[in-house]
């Protein structure tokens, strides 16, 4: 998809114009686009860098599925967006524009940028819920926008393949994109800076602007914090195993704000630098602003304030061709982008190394995925073996869960070996996911969700059988409470997200654990039973079993001698539908 220069210019003039508006947003309809621009604010409360958890009702996709890390967002921006979303006509107007088949563009300058970002994500979440989903994606163009959230933003947006809709423009020395790398809430200087921005925004002749005297102090403050954040990130990129680094991490918590989407910088000499590797952008944010001497520093500090309003001169004039990005660049294309960025920005040797390290991490992630892909064959073969074992048991009218639990035959032992072999491969994958060492798209890939679901349905019953066979529930508690391996939890989370199912509803692979738990509970006292909700759980499991039985995902439970049927027959209140499913 290509973004034409005219759209960018139109968006920019709208974004700047919005500052003068008193409304929550400004709408402009052209022949092919509907541009929604959000005004910035110059008051301190609207800029405070305090972090808050993302509102998961509004933005359910902004989390990592397996690790369950929620996105963290700037509180002030989220609150402001919520006001706009609830109280204004935004939703209605956007809907009307969609009906007219317009390309929706969300835009903002300065602190209007984050609102545009949140509006775009909100639009995308809404589109995903619809059936059929909307055809055209939105476009989100920000100018000199501060950072919005932590690394989960970048991770989640890539997984959903939404990252390509976000383009952030930044002039080389503009301080605002870097501001949240420093903690700002306690800085009275910041109010002065905001005031200076305010006065600049109403000036017609930009040449007459005089930066305040604290500009240099403020600049140094932001830059030294940015240095902490970027060197911390660079150490992680280069996989430093030095223990001192770990100790330091627990002492100093650098800012968690991170870039996402595509960034387009001006290099100060008429060239534009495009970068969409979020780690590289973070490093660039510091190194492109690094002064070479104290004198230079003072000059740059002044520019850092003036360039916040110089987008026309510095950036847009250099935009000569449409921007083409589809998020599916090859490894070489990505590396080229990084090398070019380092060149065109004239970075120091250290800066270049950090950027290259970011590129290297990306390559490593791709290699890890290739490695997992190469194991698919092995996984398929092992699954097939266990499938055969299951069918063999079925031929003897025995559920494979029960056969495995008894471990009487050699077949049972072999199935155990297969189970362990698969556990090794899948655990390796989980280790990589935990450290974010696989590409962000991985948890959204259909092929892996399918493999995960099949693996889960076939093998988890064997893990549960093994667990209860060794009476491990007496060692460490029920299987579902703290003993369930991540290699089952993660694929379940992926499937539930991809198919928009409620969390925890896709539990057909671990229903045996619930059965075992209820069996033990049945032998206990009535007080214990009420404490652990025996009644309601019994009903729930019976209803679920009927549903899964109809979907044919748990056939082996219905043999006459199976643990489940025996337990069900002993219940005082039985669900009659189950009788029809039992195979006698």
């Amino acid at each position, binding site marked *: 998809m290509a973004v034409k220069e005219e759209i960018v210019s139109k968006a920019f003039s709208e974004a700047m114009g919005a500052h003068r508006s008193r409304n929550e947003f400004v709408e402009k309809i052209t022949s092919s686009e509907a541009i929604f621009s959000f005004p910035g604010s110059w008051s301190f409360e609207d800029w405070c860098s305090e972090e808050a958890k993302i509102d998961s009702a509004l933005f359910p996709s902004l989390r990592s599925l397996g690790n369950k890390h929620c996105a963290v967002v700037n509180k002030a921006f989220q609150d402001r967006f919520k006001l706009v979303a609830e109280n204004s006509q935004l939703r209605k107007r956007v809907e009307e524009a969609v009906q007219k088949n317009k390309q929706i563009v969300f835009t903002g300058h300065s602190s209007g940028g984050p609102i545009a970002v949140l509006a775009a994500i909100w639009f995308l979440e809404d589109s995903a819920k619809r059936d059929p989903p909307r055809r055209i994606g939105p476009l989100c163009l920000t100018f000199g926008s501060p950072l919005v959230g932590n690394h989960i933003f970048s991770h989640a947006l890539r997984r959903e393949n939404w990252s390509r809709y976000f383009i952030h423009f930044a002039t080389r020395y503009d301080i605002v994109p870097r501001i949240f790398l420093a903690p700002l809430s306690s800085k009275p200087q910041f109010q002065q800076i905001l005031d200076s921005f305010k006065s600049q925004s109403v000036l017609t002749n930009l040449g007459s602007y005089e930066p305040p005297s604290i500009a240099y102090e403020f600049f140094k403050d932001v830059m030294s914090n940015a240095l902490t954040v970027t060197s911390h990130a660079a150490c992680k990129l280069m996989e430093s195993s*030095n*223990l*001192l*680094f770990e100790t330091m991490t627990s002492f100093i918590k650098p800012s968690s704000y991170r870039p996402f989407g595509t960034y387009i910088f001006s290099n100060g000499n008429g060239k534009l630098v495009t970068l969409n590797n979020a780690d590289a952008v973070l490093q660039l944010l510091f190194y492109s602003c690094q*002064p070479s001497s104290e004198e230079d520093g003072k000059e740059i500090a002044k520019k850092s304030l003036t360039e916040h309003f110089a987008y026309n001169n510095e950036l847009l004039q250099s935009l000569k061709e449409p921007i083409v990005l589809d998020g599916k660049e090859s490894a070489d294309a990505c590396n080229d982008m990084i090398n070019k960025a380092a060149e065109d920005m004239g970075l120091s040797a250290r800066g270049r190394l950090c950027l290259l390290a970011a590129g*290297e991490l990306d390559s490593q992630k791709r290699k890890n995925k290739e490695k997992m892909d190469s194991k698919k064959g092995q996984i398929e073969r092992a699954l097939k073996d266990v499938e055969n074992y299951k069918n063999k048991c079925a031929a003897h009218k025995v559920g494979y869960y029960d056969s495995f639990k008894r471990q009487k035959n050699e077949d049972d032992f072999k199935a155990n070996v297969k189970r*362990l072999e698969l556990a090794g*491969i899948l655990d390796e994958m989980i280790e990589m996911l935990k450290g974010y060492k696989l590409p962000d798209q991985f948890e959204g890939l259909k092929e892996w969700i399918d493999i995960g679901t099949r693996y889960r349905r076939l093998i988890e019953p064997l893990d549960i059988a093994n667990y209860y066979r060794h009476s491990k529930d*007496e060692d460490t*508690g029920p299987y579902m409470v703290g003993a369930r391996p991540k290699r089952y939890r993660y694929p379940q989370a992926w499937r539930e997200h991809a198919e928009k199912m409620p969390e925890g509803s896709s539990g057909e692979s671990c229903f045996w654990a619930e059965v075992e738990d209820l069996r033990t509970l049945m032998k206990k006292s009535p007080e214990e039973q009420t404490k652990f909700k025996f009644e309601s759980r019994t009903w729930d499991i019976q209803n679920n079993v009927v549903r899964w039985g109809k979907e044919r995902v748990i056939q082996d439970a219905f043999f006459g001698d199976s643990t489940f049927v025996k337990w069900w027959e002993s219940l005082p209140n039985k669900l009659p539908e189950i009788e029809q499913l039992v195979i006698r």
Partner: protein
Amino acid sequence: MLALRERCKFIVITGHSLGGATASLAALWLLCELQSVTTSPPVLCITFGSPLLGNDSLSGAILRERWSGNFCHVVSNHDIMPRLLFAPSATLTPQMQLLLQHWHFSMSSTTTTTTTTITTPPFGIPAAARLGDQEKAEFLGFIMASLEQSSVGAAVGEETAGRFSFWPFGNYLLCSGEGAICLDNAASVVKMMYLMLMSCSLNDFTEDHLMYGEYVARVSSQYLKQRSFVHGELNRESSYETGLALALQSSGISSQEPAAMQAKDCLTMARRLGRTPHLNCAKLAVSLSQVVPYRAQIEWYKMLCDESEDQMGYYDAFKRRGSSKRGDQVNMIRHKLGCFWDNIIEQLQNNELPYDFHKRDKWVNSFHFYKLLVEPLEIAEYYRRGKHRVEGHYLKNGRPRRFQISDRWWKERRANKDKNRTRTKFASSTQDSSFWARVEEAWEWLGDLQSGNDAINKQEIWENINNFDRYARTLIERKEVSVDVLAKNSSYTIWNVELSKLSSALVCPAPLLHSA
């Protein structure tokens, strides 16, 4: 300090010169104290120009406990104090006395400005001035020679070089006018300390000890600025070469100097070889899955012994095995599993695994369940070979370190978990993996009593026996033992039988239990 622990989020201990040595010791003490506490604030010890503290055994111990990340020693390139103890005899020379006096005066008479001035003490010429140039040169030369010897010895890996002489530990932040580098490989630290000192002038080495304020201020502001690479062209192709060149520049050694080549080699040596920790850990998951089937075989062996006619339980069956094929196989598996876990411990100590490895449930659990199942076999083998007669009992002298480590990890993970679970059937493995070792000790006590030897302290032995008896019964009541303990012919059951025979034999003639 212990009171502070409750209230604060983290602890920083610091000191300059000899104060640094005290700080290091305080930090070591605190780390030892906090080891037994589950949640403790992180501790960081930062020292400036402090002398060496201990020999390579100390460094090794700190590495094994994974505390080297808690120490950061800031050392400037020309400061003589941290390098002093490479030549311990130098501290006894008169030059040393003069140096110490000079530093003492300078430090106590300056204010908190970062630049140091040599103020004239109330009486006469400053102490340093009494050190003539020749004497300075001699002193410096002496230190340099010892330093060179140590660094050469380190490179060759000489055992004797390290054993009695001082050796660095923890991380070193070596600063120069051009920047700083951070190293944690002790041999590299020694070498770099030597190489960086080479460019030292006669005045530098006395004054540098006082210049830490300047160095620290400079380093902090230095990295904010873009610095061009001064010494020649940077290799654009290899990032590694570039990194190396930048590190060299930061250490203040210009590429023209003869020391440059050696420094490059030294820094190369310091890097981590092999895969990154995360990938190592991921690969281990696959290795674990290949090793667990062996554990399954031992489980099967255990079950076989439980069901066999001998009714001995797997501990005794293994201990008393003749030369059977199955016994040999089980022995080999026991050995293999031991090697596997020893290898993991070694990787952990060499920093090849993620630093929070010992907190990950998967590994803590696997390690623990291996220990519960296989330690009885280790104990059986130990006593079978009669090692207890030569080296003492298993629990005191024979227990492999990996089991102690597993105990520690398990305790840390399970400290807050529910301990009051009541069992309805016997556990699949005895929950105290050293149970059988205690049984063996109990056998020895019983043997002592039965032998009728009057030289022994009967009261103490009876006390031990009663303690053991109580301990065993509690375990059995709580069903925390596996069924093999109660097998008809297991060591424990037979011991119980012998004990009751002995007790009843004693009741008849005279109650020894009441003897004074």
